[in-house]
């Protein structure tokens, strides 16, 4: 079991959350070539070490959060609200459009 520190709810079991994915900067779709856009869509760093990722507290406050986790040990060191959300822009932009669809349970 790993504990994720939710900025609203405090430390909670990871099973309450839905994993959304690596945080990556979304390029402006109006000014991006196909190659760069597809790389944004599909390519992943998938590091064996510290990674910054978005989670969705689906069984809690139903807010997105950004956490730093070590993928070898699953240690979580920080969590915060998505940056853009802190700046007051809407959630879709805050999470790079990568918003969890709540279907209940794991994806696969």
């Amino acid at each position, binding site marked *: *079991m790993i504990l994720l520190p939710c900025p609203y709810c405090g430390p909670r079991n*990871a*099973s309450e959350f*839905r*994993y959304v*994915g*690596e945080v990556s900067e979304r390029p402006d779709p109006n000014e991006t070539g*196909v*190659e760069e856009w*597809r*790389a944004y*869509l*599909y*390519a*992943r*760093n*998938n*590091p*064996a070490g510290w*990674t910054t*990722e978005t989670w969705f507290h689906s069984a809690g406050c139903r807010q997105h959060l950004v956490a730093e986790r070590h*993928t*070898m*040990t*699953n240690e979580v060191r920080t969590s915060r609200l998505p940056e853009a959300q802190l700046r007051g822009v809407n959630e879709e932009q805050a999470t790079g459009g990568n918003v969890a669809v709540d279907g209940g*349970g*794991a*994806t*696969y």
Partner: protein
Amino acid sequence: MRAIKSVLRAATSSVGPDRNGSKKGHKPYRYSAFSLLRHGFSQADWPRAWRKHDLKSSYDVVVVGGGVHGLATAYYLAKNHGIANVAVLDKGYIGSGGSGRNTAIIRSNYLTPEGIRFYDRSVKLYESLSADLNYNTMFAQRGHLTLAHNDSSLRTMRWRAEVNKLEGVDSEVIGPDEIKKLVPFMDTSEEVRYPILGALYHPPGGIIRHDAVVWGYARGADAQGVHIHQNAEVTGIDVADLRVEGVKTSQGDIATRVVVNCTAGWSTLISQMAGVRMPISTFPLQAAVTEPVRPFLDPVIVSGTLHVYVSQTDRGELVFGASVDPFTSYSMRGSLEFTEGLAGHVLELMPSLARMRLLRQWAGLCDMTPDFSPIMGVTPVAGFLVDVGWGTYGFKAGPVSGETMAELIATGKTPELIAPFGLDRFESGDLMGEKGAAAVGH
């Protein structure tokens, strides 16, 4: 690559490809009850199945990853194309990754025609593998049942069955009565939480002894001159002007023009050493095994809705697998959530197993791609080939992957069977959606 090709051309003309395994003439078995007795009485040391070599400073081909994919690639390179100056590197021992951690299920009832053709070739190769390798891999084609608990699953099963039949693969949707005949212990009543409405029945599917497949390929490759290097971790790949020049390992440097990435779990990291980014996320997948009991379960049972699959090994243990863990990780630690969830789901299917005890659980790493199909073939770096992104379906594709990757290396042309699985599909957007048949729960 050009140098290799010329080497090959000379070699292939004299060797000649023999694709379908050797069915001509019966080879004497190297391992038999008689030799077991003889060795038992004489107390002599068993001969090594594959040798240990010093790392050479150059090889024609370096295969990264000593699992079924890497060893099969090396085996078919030597056997079909006469390229034996090959090194297979593994950072641990051979078969210590996905090849020794999977649940050993073989099937070809996929969803896309391209996927079905590919996996069916693999089933065909598995059928003749014991004879080909002269090594008993214990392939038991006991049938494979994918249960449907709701209308949408049943529709996907029907879809899969029709595409399977078009491709000549034995596959049919059957009802609860027939399921009950095949698996009397299964609860096919309507009183359960998720009643079984039907199943996709795939008679050629089954289970195999996965270690034997790895060892058989290792012995076969070694006998033809391939060098297997264990405890040789790749620490870097030398690339100049988008061409591979060599590999750095913990045992020394190797000059080579061709590197094949046959790793699972670490495929993103190995590809990044060559400067190639991959559309892969690594998820752990857990499995568990019970104490052995008398044989009672013949086919392999899979339930997508309940996220579980069950088969009984020849030793009588029940092997359980489930969905991949809900978040990416390189950690291979088991979790209590998995065990609890698994037990609940298994008991829903077969309540009579309630008193059985789990012996152990383990995890392996699955490189998931966005479309649930593998990534095979060339990359933007000349000489750097990939056979990765095998998610939860890599073991069953081992032989055909080895055969086609060997052909690609030898001829320089991508075989038609793997053309749909190229890395370039993510640039063109021409994805191969296999989620409906490859994912356990969907």
